[in-house]
């Protein structure tokens, strides 16, 4: 498993060696109606092999009805260090939550 490998894993894996297989991130839909969720990563020479490997590695016990594989280096990720700057501060924005509106307390079906 390697969430967030998009930079580290990929750069590490893409080093020297002509036949080094690239890294793929695997997303599995566990049942109809649910989103695909990141399951982990694996190495494979191409997309169809990545799908087969993902099936063998992440769905040996009926864990999924659908799989996506994405080349790790195709994923753009936000910088974990810019937490404060990148993600809008929730401070003073309580009005985005239902709990902000207290006057209607006790009113049914609201």
């Amino acid at each position, binding site marked *: 498993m390697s*969430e967030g490998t998009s930079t580290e894993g990929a750069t590490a894996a893409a080093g020297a060696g002509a036949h080094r297989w690239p890294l793929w991130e695997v997303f599995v839909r566990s049942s109809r109606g649910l989103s695909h969720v990141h399951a982990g990563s694996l190495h494979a020479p191409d997309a169809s092999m990545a799908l087969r490997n993902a099936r063998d590695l992440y769905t040996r016990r009926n864990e999924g009805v659908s799989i996506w594989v994405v080349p790790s280096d195709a994923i753009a990720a936000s910088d974990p260090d810019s937490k404060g700057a990148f993600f809008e501060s929730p401070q003073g924005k309580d009005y985005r939550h239902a709990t902000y509106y207290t006057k209607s307390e006790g009113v049914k079906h609201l």
Partner: protein
Amino acid sequence: MARIVQPAGQPAPTNAPNAPDAPASNDAAGQANFDAIIAKDSRVEPKDWMPEAYRRSLVRQISQHAHSEIIGMQPEANWITRAPSLKRKSILMAKVQDEAGHGLYLYSAAETLGTTRDDMMDALVAGKARYSSIFNYPTVTWADMGAIGWMVDGAAICNQVPLCRASYGPYGRAMVRVCKEESFHQRQGFEILLELAHGTPEQKAMAQDAVNRWYAPSLMMFGPPDDDSPNSKQSMAWNIKRFSNDELRSRFVGMLAEQVKVLGLTLPDSEIRFNEDTKKWEYGPLDWEEFKEVLAGRGPCNAQRLERRRSAHEDGAWVREAAAAYHDKQLAKQAAEQKAAA
């Protein structure tokens, strides 16, 4: 690297991140952030700043863990062709396949720390990497499949359940996946022993013999005693390890002591007892000299295991080359089609 955001309206400290000092300041900010994550018992993720020693320690632990899963396939694969029934053969194949999967989850986790799969593989086949000493013992009877499932996978579970909460996110997540699969391993082993123990006198004796041989090595899977385990303290301070080797071993002995009664077998240790004062299970002395010998490469099967891994890797080279050649061919075909269409 961490960016230091200066709160508005406050004077800049004298050691503000000016060019020459920048790396050190960034490290300091990274360290502070890391310390805060550990103090909150939160999780460190791959792109976070982390101390070099933390990274190195994780690479060592996770890659050794991955190697153990991969080498650990061999003692059991040894019995696939001789499993006593088609059902047992299917079960054993599923288990060995799971162990391969565990190795792959763990290699992926280690890769997020910046080490490559090939480097880890090379270190293993070159004999430069360590793996759990337990897999250097031979599997001489079918009952060993039972004893391994019950005791070796059992010890692994005791070790791995707390690792699901390891401070390094990818390691913890790999462990969650592994632990879900391990309980089947332990149960199928227990069942093998249970059936043998209720079989003919010869079968029962075979089960007892396997338990006798695997008992001490499985206890040693938790690592050296606490006073001889130099890395443990730091690992616990970093929230990687949650319990000491001796603590986990004592718990494990307690589980075995109860479960062995259900099997109608005995453990080869007359000193097992529950200490009412310390509330801990105690056991007889273990041969740590043997442990060190096996770990140093002088166990009964070390050379055989490495040689097998090496030859399997070499024998598979043509498959890897063929897959790469096929991929190149597909790319060339695509390019030619695009050119023709343009």
